[in-house]
């Protein structure tokens, strides 16, 4: 056990940060400094200093110099959250030869100055927080970080452009990648698009080579039509369970000739890849460039599975690859890191009832339009009404459907403005229709985005600023009599300051992006946090945008929030770069926060055994004692709290440390005075 309280008389240095005016604006830093020097001397404080920015090199040098010259054995820094700068100050201590775990960072910024406005009360609380840190640090013990090996293989979850980029970066560097994709082919949403804004590159032309590269890469193992059902372990040594859904086609024998698809008699509306406006067969590859080039048989829609006869595909397959007896199976793979690139789902426009999607035939969603404008799509690239033949004479595009709207999602979906501009341009390219864009603001902040906006303006697209109230086929005004069969867009034109009813033939709803419906379960499975919306939370929104709070789990692309293709690619590459750095190091150090058992005190009651969700506690029947497997222990401390014999101890968060911190925090009253024990409790040990 390495958390035995060390001697009560340590030499403690206290350093209080102004953080410019971030802390000093609300906390009287000098008063806290003087108070600590005077009142905490009994707890070993030999020096208390303040600095404008403790994290600056001058600030850190102060600590280093004091450790060397005054022989400090403990350091308390009162500044920002330990999630921000704990590493910085531990590093300063280490440079001066002090074990980094003998440093404690207490938060007087996130938890004091930024959340309180009363200066006297905030200063009193800062004193209490500093006291908590000083009392606690006396109980710290020198620790060594745990070194764990990093398995060079990586699991990439999601085969869209973000996942593809991450996988290729890692595979090209020479390391194995397991890519898991739920659909029969990789490609994600990008594979559905025709053109990409603002350059109007053909999406398939730039994506297909990347998909092929993944498919043929010797370092990439593809698991399509599959899902990750479980992830256990920790950074460097995860074990992922991947469920392969039965394809009913033997991938080893299949040549991808497509005869099964041709001969299959069952037509099904393709809700995924064709966004509900096209058909596929029951035996199908979602699109011609699919990777892998192996179809799947969609069991629930297959005549053989429902009626027991058919087997047309089996009859015609030239290589005998059809296998109706295939079962779902599971594989376990060992990986060191994980990239979550699980993407988004389109907002369900049916929820905005007043726009009539699902009720008015000529109201389309953005993805439906993407498929329609795609030369390989169900209409061969012709832009037509729901009847499949009539070209529209006028089109209305409604921005922000399901985004920037408190009724649905408050966030901006980031891509809809540019996508709507692209639609306006494509409509102009394919038809003679007049285009109205109904927008709240046009947000075009990316490279060459605003230029594209100007171009679309010059092309004659009409922009109407206002949130559309309703899309209807009910003609209400006398001059609408000749508009039978058309749609009326009712909108308050907020620039003209008037209500307008604009007749159009077709309405496109630029629907927002939402996290996948199972985002919360995914987060739980991978042990990470997501926001209440369902987007993955980054370790730091600015400085660590692709890491999560869980070591070894990274995220990229729309899993983190709505973003365009360039950002998704950048995320994918960034996640890969972070992982490559670790693989190069071959091992990494982890916080030594682990439980351990003092065998001499263990009574063998086994209470701890059942509490551990990681099975990290072994019980030795012969000696009747428990032992913690440090490699499996995640350091939650639940067993430490439960041990009735006090045999279980947790490094970094020992009973002595927490109790001391409690004592320190409560040694100061709400007004900053020393606490006097309650008369009833005088003499009662804490």
């Amino acid at each position, binding site marked *: 056990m390495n958390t035995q309280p060390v001697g009560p008389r340590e030499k403690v240095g206290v350093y209080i940060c102004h953080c410019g005016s971030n802390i000093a604006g609300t906390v009287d830093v000098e008063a806290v400094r003087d108070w600590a020097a005077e009142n905490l001397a009994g707890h070993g404080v030999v020096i208390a200093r303040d600095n404008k920015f403790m994290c600056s090199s001058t600030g850190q040098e102060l600590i280093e110099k004091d450790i060397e010259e005054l022989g400090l054995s403990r350091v308390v820094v009162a500044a920002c*959250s330990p999630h921000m700068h704990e590493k910085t100050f531990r590093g300063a201590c280490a440079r001066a030869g002090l074990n980094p775990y003998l440093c404690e960072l207490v938060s007087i*910024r996130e938890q*004091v100055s*930024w959340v309180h406005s009363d200066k006297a009360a905030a200063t009193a609380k800062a004193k209490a927080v500093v006291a908590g840190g000083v009392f606690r640090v006396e109980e710290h013990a020198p620790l060594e970080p745990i070194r764990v090996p990093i398995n060079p293989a990586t699991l990439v979850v999601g085969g869209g452009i973000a996942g593809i980029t991450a996988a290729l970066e890692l595979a090209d560097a020479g390391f194995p990648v397991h890519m898991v994709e739920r659909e029969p082919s990789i490609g994600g949403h990008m594979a559905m698009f025709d053109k990409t804004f603002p350059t109007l590159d053909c999406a398939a032309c730039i994506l297909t080579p990347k998909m092929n590269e993944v498919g043929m890469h010797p370092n990439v193992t593809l698991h399509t039509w599959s899902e990750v059902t479980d992830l256990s372990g920790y950074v460097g040594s995860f074990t992922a369970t991947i469920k392969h859904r039965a394809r009913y086609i033997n991938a080893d024998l299949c040549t991808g000739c497509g005869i099964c698809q041709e001969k299959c008699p069952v037509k099904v509306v393709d809700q995924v890849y064709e966004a509900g406006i096209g058909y596929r067969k029951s035996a199908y590859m979602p699109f011609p460039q699919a990777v892998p080039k192996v179809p799947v048989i969609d069991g629930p829609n297959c005549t053989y599975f429902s009626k027991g006869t058919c087997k047309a595909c089996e009859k015609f397959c030239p290589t005998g690859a059809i296998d109706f007896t295939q079962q779902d199976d599971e594989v376990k793979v060992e990986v060191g890191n994980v990239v979550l690139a699980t993407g988004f789902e389109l907002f369900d426009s049916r929820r905005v009832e007043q726009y009539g999607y699902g009720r008015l035939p000529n109201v389309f969603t953005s993805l439906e339009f993407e498929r329609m404008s795609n030369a390989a799509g169900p209409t061969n690239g012709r832009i037509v009404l729901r009847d499949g033949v009539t070209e529209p004479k006028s089109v209305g595009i409604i921005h922000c459907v399901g985004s920037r709207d408190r009724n649905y999602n408050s966030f901006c979906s980031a891509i809809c403005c540019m996508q709507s501009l692209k639609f306006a341009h494509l409509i102009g390219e394919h038809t003679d229709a007049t285009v109205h864009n109904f927008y709240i603001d046009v947000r075009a902040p990316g490279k060459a985005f605003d230029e594209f906006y100007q171009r679309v303006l010059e092309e004659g697209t009409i922009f109407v600023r206002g949130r559309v109230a309703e899309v209807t086929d009910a003609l209400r005004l006398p001059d609408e009599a000749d508009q039978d069969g058309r749609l009326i867009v009712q909108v308050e034109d907020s620039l003209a300051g008037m209500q307008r009813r604009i007749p159009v033939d077709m309405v496109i709803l630029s629907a927002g992006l939402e996290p996948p419906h199972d985002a919360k379960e995914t987060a739980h499975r991978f042990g990470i946090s997501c926001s209440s919306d369902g987007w993955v939370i980054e370790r730091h929104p600015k400085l660590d945008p692709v890491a999560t709070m869980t070591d070894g789990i990274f995220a990229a692309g729309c899993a983190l929030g709505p973003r365009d293709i360039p950002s998704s690619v950048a995320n994918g590459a960034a996640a890969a770069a972070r992982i490559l750095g670790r693989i190069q190091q071959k091992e990494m150090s982890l916080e030594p926060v682990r439980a351990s058992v003092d065998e001499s005190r263990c009574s063998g009651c086994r209470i701890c055994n059942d509490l551990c969700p990681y099975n990290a506690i072994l019980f030795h029947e012969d000696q009747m004692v428990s032992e913690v497997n440090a490699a499996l222990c995640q350091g939650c401390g*639940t067993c430490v*709290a439960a041990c009735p014999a006090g045999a279980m101890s947790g490094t970094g968060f020992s009973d002595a440390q927490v109790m001391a911190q409690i004592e320190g925090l409560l040694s100061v009253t709400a007004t900053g005075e020393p606490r006097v024990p*309650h008369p009833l409790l005088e003499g009662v040990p804490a």
Partner: protein
Amino acid sequence: MSAHPVAAPLDGAFEPVILGFTCNWCSYRAADLAGTARIKYPPNVRLVRLMCSGRLDPAFVLSAFAQGADAVIVSGCWPGECHYQVQNLKALKRFQLLRRVVAGLGIEPTRLQLVWASAAEGQRLANEIGRITEEVRALGPLGWGGAGADPAVAGTTVLPVREGAPPPAERDLAEVTA
């Protein structure tokens, strides 16, 4: 019962001191987020960071009361969202027992409260801290045996589920009812 000799400041208004136990992954992060977003809450709460709410030794709470805390907040990830799978549910079970023990000691159950807060819920945590501070302020200083201590009220915690969240898995429920 006379006023707590310490908690009553010079101007006579009672300012409670409340100790909050937070977990490293959700509620401490929520507190950080409240800070980053400059969301204000009463300065009466002082936070202790644990790795998990499951680390909360009941002795920590009792020790806090013994050392003059007027209330204690136990806080962690929402059921089903624990960084350590189900350890927050173990904290919940301990909390339920502890509330009875505390009531038996003559401490009003209002003085020991459980708050779930995800890493994204800075606003919620701040609101809850505000609410609890008000409740404790109304209750007055910890009086050891105050009239509000009623063991019957103590055992009323149910497994709370966040609005819109999937129903707790059977495994989770089994954890609580076992």
